[in-house]
């Protein structure tokens, strides 16, 4: 049994295809979905989304925030932003991480929240980038242009 997955962000459709299982960073903790799941609408955290394909290697996608709609035969991820492992610019993510660390050290407590989010996001992007697969990519919808 596979389940249809669609990942959309405001600027593009990132993925459309069938997977065995999908795990997502739900606000209430890691959320795994198989075919036949009860209808669910939930918000997403900043985290790693994994697509488990039958037989093949899993695919990793960094998502930050958004909403997921789960239906028995379909999962629609409306992420505020999403990048797959091989799209992530490691150098830029490292730079952003350093900037965020620096800001966390120097900033006063009251406006730390955006910096903390930036820090978590760049950490996540690095983590997902390290998952860069050596095998052939799946049925990703190509980026525009």
């Amino acid at each position, binding site marked *: 049994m596979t389940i249809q997955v*669609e990942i*959309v*962000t*405001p*600027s*593009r*459709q990132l993925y459309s295809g069938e997977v065995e299982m999908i795990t997502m960073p*739900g*606000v*209430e903790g890691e959320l795994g979905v198989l075919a036949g799941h*009860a*209808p*669910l*609408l*939930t*918000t*997403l955290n900043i985290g790693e989304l994994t697509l488990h394909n039958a037989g093949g290697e899993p695919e990793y996608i960094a998502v930050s*925030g*958004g*909403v997921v*709609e789960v*239906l028995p035969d379909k999962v*629609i991820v*409306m992420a*505020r*932003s999403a990048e797959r492992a091989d799209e992530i610019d490691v150098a830029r993510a490292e730079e952003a991480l350093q900037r965020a660390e620096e800001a966390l050290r120097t900033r006063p407590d009251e406006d730390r929240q955006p910096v903390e989010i930036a820090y978590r996001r760049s950490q996540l992007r690095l983590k997902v980038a390290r998952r860069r697969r050596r095998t052939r990519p799946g049925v990703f919808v190509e980026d*525009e*242009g």
Partner: protein
Amino acid sequence: MASTREIRRRIRSVRNISQVTRAMEAVAASKMRRAQQQVMATRPYAEKALEVLSHIARLHGSGDPMDALITSRAEIKRVGIVLITADRGLAGGFNANVLRQNALFIKEQRDRGREVEVVAVGRKGRDWLLRYDPVIRAEFTNMPDTLATADIAPISRTVIDDFRSQRFDEVHIIFTDFVNTLLQRPTVQQILPVVPAETTAAMPPDYIFEPSVEAVLEQVLIGFTEVQILQAMYESIASEHSARMVAMRNATEAANELVDELTLTYNKARQEGITRELMDIIGGSIGLE
């Protein structure tokens, strides 16, 4: 009559201009196509968000208090405008048209006794406001041509925060809608409060909401506001380049016509010169006889 050398110099300079405008036309054409594709790419998200939104709206009925972003206020006193213009000119009437729409809208709102503040996106809009009507709430210039959500996030955060804090009771976006290459239409669209569309789609199943309906709704509303701003930006970018493309094509044609005219004048002048020289020679030779 100008000397042949002067005319030749003018021909060369006009020909250079036509080369520049032709290159600008080609650049604008390719940027326009890209922006058109980006407009298309926002549709799946926008449609999905709207679907979930109207589902939640229906679920809640009309009486319940829901998110502030979706609740119309009884009295509208302060209106926010997101004005989208280009950073650059040389695009025919593109900036002037959207600025005229903006001026009309501001006047209309003031006539109804409302206060207006503008979030200016694009340098042309900001400059116009600074000169004629400096009610600027925020400004965003030098936006990249290939926009992502992260680029417009500060804009949506500004208007959402201002709407929540009651600085604005309504937020509208003024941009140029790309109809086709020949027609771009300045458009006003309300973005806050969000108006969920009536869908005729079949009633979806009963969802479990995690952590709560309100939290999901808030995320969807923020996402929907962002995608609307993004769409307006893409439409505007496509319109800008298409207007520039047409303006540059006209400029190239005008330059080529001018080259033809000048070439004719040049030939006449040259012929006149030759005739004059011949007359001199003939006159001289008659004198010698």
